[in-house]
């Protein structure tokens, strides 16, 4: 049994176009299914607007889906109530992108970190200080920092506080939504090391959302690539980075800037493509990637590809239909 599983998870938003305009349907997440095993890191990559954050918010039940379900340890999380829901809230935690916006500026670190412990009755009152000190220690901060306010910390330290808060209830799964994007390069490496270390120490599973492919390759076991609300490729991280199957994955990997010490591998000043990501309100027919795809052929603009199994992974592309496996 999978640890956490999404089944045909869908979120459609109704949006009005302009004042008094027509209502349109934005398919933010469309029939997304995947399984995450215990003790593993599952990453979701894709460009802005591909639905990765909406997906994360549904996985932790901050948003209700329009369809489909999320099974956590065998239970549908949208059916949970009472103590079961409280238990789910304890087991799954989230870290957000912006550590400036996700800490209450008027709360001392001690209050921020002890509040979840009090709500869930995890620790008796006289042990709260010790527990907070222990949490700060586990993310590389010192216990004397608990009496400070968020503005007294740097971005990296604030992200450590957010991580400490997510750890406070001894969760089993942490969803990290772009936890590094707001940080400087030298600080990013500190936080990646911290997450790796916590993963080993507490046997945590991660759902890691990022647009930085180098970090994703470094940190994850399995990777799902999303494009306009759908998974277009899902594979083992090494396989995916070694040989991407979907043309979109290939495009992403090629575009990611890499430090290359071999001289003169600079970008050729070659042809610049004219297409941008289409609007999710006005999706292209057939395969939604076909207007940007360098490998498109006749049927791509009218046949919608299904997610099929190829070479032990899943890919949504007509190119691979003939070598489909059962």
């Amino acid at each position: 049994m999978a640890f956490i599983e999404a089944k045909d998870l869908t979120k459609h938003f109704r949006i009005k176009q302009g004042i008094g305009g027509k209502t349109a349907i934005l398919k933010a997440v469309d029939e997304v299914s995947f399984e995450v095993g215990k003790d593993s890191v599952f990453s979701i990559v894709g460009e802005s607007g591909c639905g990765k954050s909406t997906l994360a918010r549904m996985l932790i039940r901050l948003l209700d889906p329009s369809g489909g379900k999320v099974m956590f340890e065998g239970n549908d999380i949208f059916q949970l109530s009472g103590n079961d829901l409280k238990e789910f809230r304890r087991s799954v935690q989230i870290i957000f992108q912006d550590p400036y916006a996700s800490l209450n500026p008027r709360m001392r670190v001690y209050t921020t970190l002890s509040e979840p412990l009090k709500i869930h009755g995890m620790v008796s009152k006289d042990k709260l200080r010790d527990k907070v000190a222990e949490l700060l220690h586990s993310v590389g901060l010192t216990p004397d920092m608990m009496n400070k306010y968020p503005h007294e910390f740097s971005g990296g330290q604030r992200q450590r506080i957010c991580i400490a808060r997510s750890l406070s209830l001894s969760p089993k799964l942490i969803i990290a939504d772009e936890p590094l994007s707001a940080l400087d390069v030298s600080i990013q490496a500190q936080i990646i090391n911290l997450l790796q270390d916590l993963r080993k120490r507490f046997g945590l599973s991660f759902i890691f959302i990022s647009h930085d492919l180098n970090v994703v390759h470094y940190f994850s076991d399995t990777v799902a690539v999303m494009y306009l609300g759908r998974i277009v490729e899902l594979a083992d991280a090494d396989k995916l980075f070694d040989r991407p199957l979907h043309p979109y994955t290939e495009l992403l990997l090629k575009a990611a800037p890499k430090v290359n010490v071999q001289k003169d591998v600079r970008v050729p000043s070659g042809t610049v493509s004219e297409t941008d990501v289409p609007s999710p309100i006005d999706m292209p027919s057939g395969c939604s990637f076909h207007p940007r795809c360098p490998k498109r052929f006749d049927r791509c603009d009218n046949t919608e590809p299904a997610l099929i199994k190829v070479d032990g992974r899943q890919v949504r592309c007509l190119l691979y239909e003939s070598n489909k496996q059962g």
Partner: protein
Amino acid sequence: MLLDTRGLSVHFSSDSGPVHVISNLSFGIDPGEVFCIVGESGCGKSMTAYSIMGLLPENARSAGEILFKGSDLLTLDDESYRNLRGKEISMIFQEPMTSLNPVLKVGYQIGEVLMTHYGTSKKEAISKAVELMNTVRIPSAEIRANEYPHQMSGGMRQRIMIAMAIACKPSLLIADEPTTALDVTIQSEILKLIRGLKDENNMSVLFITHDLGIVSEIADRVGVMYAGRIVETAPTSEILKEPKHPYTMGLLNSLPAERGRPLIPIRGNVPRPDDLPSGCKFSDRCDHVIESCRAEEPVLKETLPGHFTRCIRAGEDLWRS
């Protein structure tokens, strides 16, 4: 040399005395060269760009010289600066949405540069704008020239900014993190576009970024900035292969490479400009620090031809040890 910055210093006055954001900065850019300034937030890289553009905030004070085609920009009056900006030197910014006027059509905004600098008629300027939009590969330019910025995607808006910046064929383009707000696929298109335009027009580019991957792909030469100073400058391939300053090494080591190999981050945090250590400004975070590092600030010394390093241990082989 097209641009020659000599001993540039910038400080702000505050209640507790002057805060130095740039100290004794010297670098040059040759015609047709892409020079990258790389550094973390607060290192003074954007302030360097603003100094060249004459766009420093009111309360900033600068000293030193910025020679552009031989004349010192810091001594220019407002009128001459206005004639220069957008014509000889132009700049593109990180956030294309906030740098475009939301209530004017993009075609007009591009054309305005030509109307201002050359007195071109409105009709001609707008048809020129459409040409420029073709140059930056905006599809159906004629129609899109009549659109407003909010009708365009981030990538297209940045292309509009670039079209505006190259309208007068400037000799120097300053790009301040132009791709940070964009997705990777769009980023690679914009980088290709900038390089292509540079080659076609023999333009120089001052490119500011925090991403060493981008440096590797676009720069001819790199200056690494830390705490308002250049700590190392060298040709791109050399600095990435043989870094001499521990900060540059730290940045390279922070990047995820091989799976499973733990990253080696730089310890501590980026210091605030009003709270710098004495001696070498990187000494409190440096893994190779020795006693004499804290005594006196090292100067930028040429360790190899064209390779300058601000470190007293630059002669040793710290990178491989």
